[in-house]
């Protein structure tokens, strides 16, 4: 399986994909982190849903990762698009038959692809985190935020925890994209369905029927990235996310193993 991982990484590290992804997540990370610090005195708010976070709150250990946590859900959407397109394109380009002739074990292909994309997602999250923290330090002076607590052991613990949570959330979104790619076999369809569902339909459903929110996959994936909240616990989100991914992943893997490669 290690051979599959290496081969997949060669595809993932192509400049158009790697640099394009780095530019996208870098841009998102810079944008969200900058908004927090540059609009610190704005009446319109500087955080999600128009909330306001002032210098006093940002001077706590949490201030170090505040911008990074805001960008988390968007990293998930980027991962969803990449995982979906990288999986579905094997069908649309007809390259799956080449892969299966060279590695007939379909489960090894699937597992190798998943591991390689996990590594890619890890690089993406680490880069976004590093950039966000760099920008936070750079803009803290201008926003009059005291950064003494940002170098404390509590801040380091929070940084590790946030990175792990955002990585888990990103992986959940990515896996969801990969499953859509396997089921729909078309990059455009898989991305469209994934993005539409997670960013639009789930929010409409949750707004219309309040109780559905805690059972929808995208909302739970996002909640994992935020480390849970008062309405939706981390444990609940982890259980719901795992249930969705294990059930749909098993179905997609079964189809991938059994389905004829006839295109």
């Amino acid at each position, binding site marked *: 399986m290690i051979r599959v991982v290496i*081969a997949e990484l060669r595809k993932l590290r192509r400049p158009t994909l790697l640099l394009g992804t780095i530019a996208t997540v870098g841009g998102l990370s810079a944008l969200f982190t900058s908004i927090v610090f540059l609009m610190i005195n704005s009446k319109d708010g500087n955080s999600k849903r128009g909330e306001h976070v002032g210098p006093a709150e940002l001077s706590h250990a949490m201030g170090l990762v505040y911008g990074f946590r805001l960008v988390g859900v968007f990293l998930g959407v980027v991962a969803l698009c990449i995982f979906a397109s990288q999986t579905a394109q094997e069908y649309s380009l*007809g390259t799956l038959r080449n892969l299966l002739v*060279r590695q007939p074990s379909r489960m090894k292909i699937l597992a190798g692809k998943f591991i390689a994309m996990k590594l890619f997602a890890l690089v993406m999250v680490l880069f976004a985190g590093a950039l966000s923290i760099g920008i936070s330090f750079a803009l803290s002076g201008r926003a009059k935020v005291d950064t003494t607590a940002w170098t404390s052991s509590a801040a380091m613990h929070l940084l590790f925890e946030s990175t792990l949570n955002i990585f888990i959330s990103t992986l959940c979104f990515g896996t969801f994209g990969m499953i859509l790619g396997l089921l729909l076999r078309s990059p455009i369809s898989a991305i469209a369905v994934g993005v539409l569902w997670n960013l639009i339909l789930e929010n409409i459903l949750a707004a219309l029927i309040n109780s559905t929110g805690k059972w929808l996959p995208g909302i739970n994936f996002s909640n994992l990235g935020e480390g849970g909240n008062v309405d939706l616990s981390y444990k609940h989100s982890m259980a719901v996310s795992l249930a969705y991914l294990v059930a749909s992943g098993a179905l997609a893997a079964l189809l991938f193993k059994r389905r004829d*490669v*006839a295109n």
Partner: protein
Amino acid sequence: MNKSLVPAITASDLTKIYGERAALSHGNFEVPAGSICGFVGPNGSGKTTTIRMLLGLITPSGGSGTVLGESITHPEKYLPHVGAMIEGPAFYPALSGRENLKVLAELGGFPLSRVDELLKKVDLADRGGSKFKTYSLGMKQRLGIAAALLPNPQLLILDEPTNGLDPSGIQEVRGIIRDLADSGTTVFVSSHILSELEMICEYLVMLREGKVIFSGRTNELLSAQKPMIVAKPEYEVDITKLADKVSNSGYQVMVVEGALHISAPKEVSAEINRMAFESGITLSSISVVLPTLEETFFEMTGDNK
């Protein structure tokens, strides 16, 4: 069992059914090890379906088959020794030709040094670094052949390898196939260019509407066909007169490019010559020819329109 005595490919009642349509129905054939075997049939006759079953990409609905002595239900046992290009070359457009081959080399566990060797072999060394999407159809086809050669295969399966190639490209592919066969590789090749197959294939498997209509030596197939006498009058104006005379004697005739094609055994050629002489017609040439593979194919498939 001595592997060299085992046929490279066998199919026994191999069947694939989609819905109510049989893409291949009870296909029986053998491809001897070390041979070049042509796989011919009109579009939709089941060639690609058969190839996909042999490569483990689709599951047969019935029957069985072996490749290099192993059952096609366990492709992992033989695929490391099989090279294949199915339904044209399929690669990642944003990767270079070289990177595309490296992906497959890494996947199959082949040394990366093979990649440059093969790019040179298929005359793509200069363009190996260019993105696949910038390649011409011929270059894509050559890259597909290079990918098929990555494992240094005991069996090479090529589906329409000369599609999109210019005459010199076709000649190169023919050379590659012959070299491989000389070194003991079995080549199973499907092509629409029957004259190409006739030149290189010792064995043939012929399909029509999902059924194997011939499987065996090419020369057995051709020698079993009725020969044809080709008589060419010195003056073209005499051809109708000669055609009438010969057809009145009970033979089927056809005028093709200034020559008379007569369906008759070779012994009749003396009689034709005499008929021409008695009618005052001088023949510039008279010869006995066997039908080409193309003519035989059309005869057998009934597609001789």
